[in-house]
């Protein structure tokens, strides 16, 4: 099984009349692709039924079909023919060099006739013809030949899919096989290949040596699952062609690559044909390798051809022996896989096409005991081989990645990966962009893929045209970021766009949305919650709202499923989050609360299940026990991981479990915590509580603090009586939040600060009790119960407050305290739960023992008396909020948890 991989970096410079690096294509065409194709057509015309696999990289295909480059190649050929005429004249009396000059002139004429006259500059059409006649099996490769293990997985789909699409566009047929650039494989790639309809690829020998369940036989394919088979490179045939000591191309009769007239002749004679002011290759080489000496002998064409035929015969003899040996040891016919860079044949090894033609002719003979095959033919006849797994490998140095990551090139990866991240975010945030925005996104995708080409890192490693490679990488990334900024700002500049498209017009069918599809990373997150705006009963609803928006802003699609709210539509998009609301019979606040929860969960499970017929999540995120029943059912139905956030526990809220309802809720919480793949809590206090109460498996709990959006709370305007000192409480009116403690501390505060006034905001079952206490203590004119307040009112109160107090007896986190800190209000809190972790006493606030009214009163009085100190504490608190509790940070940490459970 001969596999030739044809690839060149995408080089095209319309901005100049000629560009030196475009000669890489012209040289490969002249010395490799055209001679090989002429040979194959000759064999077909002679009814030789050879078979060969040719992998054509998309950048090379794009260049070969580009009219600009086709035209420039023709002009290059004309220049070479002028040089050939001069050489023929110069060497006409030289018996050694004269015949060679004629040979080169004749070859160039034949090349021009083949390329321009016979195939209309479309060598691709010749390969297509050979594929249709069954002589060539055509493969594709990654779009820009990216070293796939070193790009983020989000780039695998666009690289592979774009390559596939290009192949289909150019050849009119789908490829079945793909050449992984540099034979670089990473576990998981086979799933992506399978999804894209690709079935075979080649890996280096070492991958098979290290496979499980034990070293795989390189003489048969290895089935990696999903119908995808890997073929392992045969080390013997590689050594015979590639080995620097024993390999064929080093034979003394073969043409010496380095003895070119571009270096040998006086500069003035060759300058018009060089393509740059520097000396370089012209293709006119008159000497043979000879041996390990600088005294090279003249090249003898017929001797070299004879040697190539001799080497072909030797190659075949060795294959016959090899296959005869392995035939005894394998259940099905052994296959010897011989992959090579196509450019070896003709460019680096001038006689390579002659060698190959001899090999193909002899192996295609009916008398040959060894048959030529292709991966498709082999697998169709004999199957994909035994099952196994392989690991990261490549055909680079030592079989892994050192060529592409080393001190010469390691600097590129942070830049490429940042661009990949941005492209994925853009693609996910704008799934239906059209017009100039769509164009800009597609061009950004092209620029990114061009930056991802493995060629740049390779060239930096080899130290050859490093400046060119560096400039290309830099240029593509800079243009990418320019386009990305334009898209984000909503004003794509047509001039910038047109210039970029003109410079790099490859992949006309590129689709930027391919970057928004990921294989292993979390795509859609579906959140279950019993409250979501406009239905806000406590911190949970606000938390889910802010988290979901921050995730969506970071490029992670989020759907929220909750209960219906009168006046709100059943489905809507709020700040990038799709919200689904399901009607639930009855009201939770009246009647049987537990029965309502059951009905709510039933409606939630049914509703989410219905939505899942058209879309799928990769993770369900359940918030508190209130949605646990639905989460469990959906985990069973959809088979996706569940992440649960425990905002508070029943035992903590009630300071123990005292009745049947509380014990039931505790049981539901236990089920949720022990069944979830990960449990998120907002503080170390909560982590310890959850651990003690529910005993989840080790490593299941993750602590991520609640976040706050400072912008939301800094809009208030001061509005109060001049001397009044507002003591503000915001929170549910329940025992565990401690409003009763604060009320009891008020008389002591008023004794020292008679101008103080307590404002209590919130609703809850304790309201009536608090009113009665106010009356009993005679505090009616220094206390105000506002009930529920809107965010706007809350912000005004925060702006007016001298101090905010959170005297909780039980507090998993204390998001309202965080909001007060964000608003720049000095805070006094109970030294309990999450509050104790947020506040550093005397640094960004004051902590007092929970439930101790005297200590609470003393702390509040100090805050009101020492305004400088209070302001200093508030300033530090504000800085801490900005640093540690921004929703962008929280969302990123949460996304990390999703990746852990899905990866």
């Amino acid at each position, binding site marked *: 099984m001969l596999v030739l991989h044809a690839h060149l970096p995408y080089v095209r410079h319309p901005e100049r009349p000629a560009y030196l690096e475009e000669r890489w294509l012209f040289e490969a065409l002249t010395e490799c692709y055209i001679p090989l194709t002429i040979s194959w057509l000759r064999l077909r015309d002679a009814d030789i039924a050879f078979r060969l696999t040719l992998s054509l990289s998309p950048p090379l295909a794009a260049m070969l079909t580009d009219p600009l480059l086709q035209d420039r190649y023709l002009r290059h050929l004309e220049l070479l023919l002028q040089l050939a005429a001069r050489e023929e004249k110069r060497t006409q009396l030289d018996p050694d060099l004269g015949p060679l000059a004629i040979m080169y002139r004749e070859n160039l004429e034949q090349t021009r006739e083949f390329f321009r006259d016979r195939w209309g500059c479309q060598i691709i059409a010749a390969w297509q013809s050979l594929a249709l006649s069954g002589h060539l099996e055509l493969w594709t490769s990654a779009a820009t030949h990216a070293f796939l*293990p*070193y790009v983020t997985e989000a780039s695998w789909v666009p690289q592979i899919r774009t390559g596939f699409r290009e192949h289909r566009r150019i050849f009119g047929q789908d490829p079945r096989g793909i050449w992984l650039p540099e034979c670089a494989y990473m*576990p998981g790639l086979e799933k992506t290949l399978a999804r894209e309809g690709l079935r075979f690829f080649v890996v280096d020998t070492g991958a098979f*040596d*290290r496979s*499980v369940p034990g*070293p795989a036989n390189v003489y048969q394919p290895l089935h990696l699952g999903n119908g995808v088979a890997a073929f392992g490179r045969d080390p013997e045939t590689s*050594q015979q062609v*590639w*080995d*620097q*000591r024993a*390999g*064929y191309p*080093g034979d003394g009769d*073969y043409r010496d*690559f*380095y003895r070119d007239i571009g270096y040998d002749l006086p500069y003035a004679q060759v300058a018009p044909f060089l393509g740059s002011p520097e000396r370089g*290759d012209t293709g006119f080489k008159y000497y043979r*390798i*000879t041996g390990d*000496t600088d005294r*090279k002998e003249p090249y003898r064409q017929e001797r070299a051809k004879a040697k190539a035929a001799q080497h072909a015969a030797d190659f075949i003899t060795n294959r016959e022996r090899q296959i005869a040996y392995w035939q005894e040891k394998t259940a099905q016919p052994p296959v010897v896989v011989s992959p090579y*860079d196509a450019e*070896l044949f003709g460019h*680096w090894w001038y006689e390579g096409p002659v060698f190959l033609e001899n090999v193909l002719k002899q192996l295609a003979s009916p008398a040959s005991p060894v048959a030529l095959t292709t991966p498709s033919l082999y697998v169709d006849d004999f199957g994909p081989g035994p099952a196994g797994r392989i*690991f*990261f*490998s490549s*055909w*680079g*140095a*030592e*079989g*892994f*990645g*050192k*060529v592409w990551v*080393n*001190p010469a090139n*390691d*600097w590129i*990866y*942070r*830049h490429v*990966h*940042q661009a990949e991240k941005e492209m994925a975010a853009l693609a996910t945030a704008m799934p239906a962009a059209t017009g100039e925005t769509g164009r800009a996104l597609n061009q950004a995708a092209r620029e990114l893929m061009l930056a991802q080409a493995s060629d740049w890192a*390779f*060239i930096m490693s*080899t130290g*050859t045209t490093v400046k060119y490679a560096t400039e290309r990488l*830099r240029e593509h*990334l*800079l243009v990418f970021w320019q386009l990305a900024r334009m898209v984000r700002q909503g004003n794509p500049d047509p001039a910038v766009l047109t210039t970029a498209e003109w410079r790099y017009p490859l992949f006309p069918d590129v689709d930027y949305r391919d970057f928004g599809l990921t294989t292993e990373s979390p795509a859609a997150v579906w959140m279950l919650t019993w409250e979501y705006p406009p239905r806000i009963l406590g911190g949970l609803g606000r938390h889910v709202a802010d988290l979901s928006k921050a995730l969506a802003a970071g490029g992670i699609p989020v759907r929220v499923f909750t209960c219906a709210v009168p006046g709100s539509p059943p489905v809507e998009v709020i700040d990038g989050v799709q919200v689904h609301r399901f009607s639930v019979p009855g009201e939770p606040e009246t009647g049987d609360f537990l029965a309502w929860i059951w009905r709510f969960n039933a409606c939630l499970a049914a509703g989410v299940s219905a939505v899942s017929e058209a879309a799928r999540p990769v993770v369900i995120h359940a918030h508190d026990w209130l949605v646990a029943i639905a989460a469990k059912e959906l985990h069973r139905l959809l088979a996706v991981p569940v992440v649960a956030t425990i905002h508070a526990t029943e035992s903590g809220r009630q300071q123990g479990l005292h009745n049947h309802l509380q014990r039931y809720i505790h049981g539901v919480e236990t089920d949720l915590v022990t069944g979830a793949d990960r449990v998120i809590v907002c503080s170390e206090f909560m982590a310890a509580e959850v651990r003690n109460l529910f005993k989840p498996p080790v490593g299941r709990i993750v602590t991520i603090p609640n976040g706050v959006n400072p912008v939301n709370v800094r809009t208030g305007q001061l509005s109060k009586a001049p001397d009044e000192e507002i003591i503000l409480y915001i929170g549910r009116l329940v025992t565990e939040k401690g409003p009763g403690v604060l009320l009891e501390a008020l008389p002591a505060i008023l004794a020292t600060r008679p101008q103080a006034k307590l404002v209590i905001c919130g609703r809850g079952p304790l309201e009536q009790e608090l009113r009665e206490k106010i009356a009993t203590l005679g505090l009616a004119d220094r206390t105000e119960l506002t009930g529920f307040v809107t965010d706007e009112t809350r912000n005004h109160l925060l702006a007016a407050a001298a101090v905010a107090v959170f005297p909780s007896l039980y507090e998993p986190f204390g998001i309202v305290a965080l909001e007060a800190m964000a608003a720049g209000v000095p805070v006094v809190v109970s030294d309990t739960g999450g509050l104790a972790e947020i506040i550093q006493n005397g640094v960004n606030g004051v902590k007092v023992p929970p439930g101790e009214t005297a200590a609470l009163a003393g702390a509040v009085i100090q805050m009101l008396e020492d305004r400088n100190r209070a302001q200093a504490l508030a300033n530090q608190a504000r*800085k*801490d909020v900005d*640093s540690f509790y921004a929703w962008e*940070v929280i969302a990123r940490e949460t996304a*990390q948890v999703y990746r852990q459970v899905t*990866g």
Partner: protein
Amino acid sequence: MEQLPQAYDQDYLGILVLDPQQMFIYWELSSLTAKAVRAREGETTLELQVRLFAGTGETGKVTWHIARQVTLPPETGHMYLNGLPPGAVCRVLIGNVAGPGCFNVLLTSEPVALPPVRPGETKESGGKESTVGAGERPELLGRPVGVPGSPAWLAGWHS
């Protein structure tokens, strides 16, 4: 000539596996995070450490043990970690040392798998880390290339 940014002012940590025993890691701490950590610790400079954990066991029953712990030189943004356990699943954490026994994690990586080796393939490298590479030019091409009369011939593109 416009240059690529020196930094992106984001918190991130990237890992590229080089071979069964070596990985390349690169990272950045955003100015916000760095400032916040300095403010919290009351320090003007940060002592950052990288800790590599190798996991053993099956999925869901992984046991993590620390395989490497290195104090990072100031102002570095990348490192090569050598002498790693072939075949292990690894996670990298970068954090600041806030005091004895206090390691605040600032960046964490996803788990990455090191490929296994063939028997006898392990190289003794002394487990040295470097920010500038091994100091010797790596063998660039695994596939042997014929040498037409010259001592060194790269199958790359001529300059």
